[in-house]
């Protein structure tokens, strides 16, 4: 078994609209997979928060995620103006009460709550999250929705808010992430969609290992694939530890709720 302590920042549980074969939606199934592969901790969100309702997903997670030092609940977030989601002050209070220290914003096309990074309607929410240094998992199903023109105002307006990109795959706009990494310390990329050969080595060499975080995209992907990508990568052990879980733990520790 590997010596690395993996913290999975990209995993989900709960009812799934189009589940993989033999999918078990429970937290126990996630814990079993973690035990099987040697994953120390995970940050699960409820899939219902993407496919149905962010707030209903959070309530489902609160009810179904067992208290465990290995599981860090992640709540889906959304603008509150339509009355479908709590206003930022109430949200932060409820997050603190529920031990939630990381949030996830789904940008998944016409069937999701938001189809783009619409900053005016997210401003109050991001003000509140940044004030408490809550990391934002920015889950963008279409990688071409995000370019520097969307990300730069986000990173520059809320430098205290770590932004972790969850992308299904890397395409041409990743070139402009390099521009952003040169300028902003609060931009991170999760591994499961960053599958380009030599990519880990390249980012670590140019921008440092703290820019990449291990994630699996469980249950759609097996957690093993990005584990092996990191295990076999040609970077030093300290850098592997940072990517596997060191940086995720640091970001969770720095939350002030």
């Amino acid at each position, binding site marked *: *078994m*590997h010596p690395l302590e993996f913290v999975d920042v990209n995993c989900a549980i709960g009812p799934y609209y189009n589940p*993989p*074969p*033999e999918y078990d939606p429970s937290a126990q199934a996630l814990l079993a997979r973690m035990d*099987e*592969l*040697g994953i120390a901790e995970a940050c699960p969100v409820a899939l219902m928060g993407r496919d149905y309702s962010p707030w209903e997903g959070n309530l489902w997670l609160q009810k179904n995620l067992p208290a465990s030092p290995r599981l860090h609940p992640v709540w889906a977030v959304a603008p509150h103006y339509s009355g479908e989601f709590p206003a930022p002050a109430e949200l932060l209070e409820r997050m603190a009460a529920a031990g939630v220290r990381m949030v996830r914003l789904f940008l998944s096309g016409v069937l999701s709550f938001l189809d783009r990074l619409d900053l005016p309607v997210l401003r109050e929410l991001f003000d509140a999250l940044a004030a408490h240094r809550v990391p934002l998992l920015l889950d963008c199903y279409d990688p071409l929705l995000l370019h520097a023109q969307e990300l730069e105002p986000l990173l520059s307006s809320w430098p205290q808010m770590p932004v972790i990109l969850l992308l*299904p*795959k*890397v*395409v*041409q706009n*990743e*070139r402009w992430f*390099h521009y952003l990494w040169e300028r902003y310390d609060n931009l991170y990329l999760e591994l499961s*969609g960053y*599958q*380009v*050969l*030599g*990519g880990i*080595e*390249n980012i670590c060499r140019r921008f440092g290992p703290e820019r990449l975080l291990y994630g699996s995209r469980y249950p*759609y*992907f*097996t957690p*093993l*694939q*990005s*584990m*092996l*990508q990191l*295990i*076999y*990568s*040609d970077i030093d052990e300290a850098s592997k530890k940072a990517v596997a879980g060191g940086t995720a733990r640091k970001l969770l520790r720095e939350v002030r709720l």
Partner: protein
Amino acid sequence: MSALRARALAGEKLSDVLIIDFHVHLPGPWAGMAIPVQTGEHMLAIAERVGVLRLVVFGAIHPDLRATNDAVAAFMRRYPERVVGFATLNPYQFDMVAEARRCFDELGLKGVKLHSMHEGPHSPRPMSSYRKEWERLFAFLAERKGPVIYHGVVSEEMVRAFPEVPFVMAHGVGEVQAMERLQDCPNFHVDTASTQNPAWAIRRAVSILGPKRVLWGTDAPLDDFAQRLGVVLDSGLEEEAIRHVLGLNAARLLQIGGAS
């Protein structure tokens, strides 16, 4: 936990497992994304860390396919034990059979890659209109027992019409309908390449086609060898089936040692 998976988790090089990557592009510039690995030598060094013994290599999407075929051949000449070169063909650029003959006879390439990206909105005619060209090409490949890996372009009818030609549908483990329709064609195969093909798609492909018609491919240098290895190792298949997918099936198609 399976022994192979445990060894991979320990970062062990799987030298005793025959691993052949059936879907690799020659490194170089790529319009659709930034590729950190820019030389064949760099790519081979990374493959070596994982234990990938051989790579089936074809060109990038290049405006001059003859030049990219020459570059693949030069790469294969430098590393004959590790690189199996395939020609990339496209009827818009040349007489495909003439170029295939040049690639096989003069350059020593062993198979053919066909790519749907050669057809675009500004193409003068659809690929399908070159029917006679395709038939001549597949007749040539049947004579030479040369495999063809294709991305789009090839129809079900073509696979059935040339049973001597091993057809490999690139990224095909995700194509359920094609696999079901061509289940009865022993010359039809799929590869595992694509960032979006999950582990359960490999298991599903084996359940439809059996373990001997699914080939491990990565799309390197676009994708990572170890990532795509993890997809197969955690597919839930028996170790014997995993060994077929990872290399034995490719060895059989390429007629190189280690096949069963």
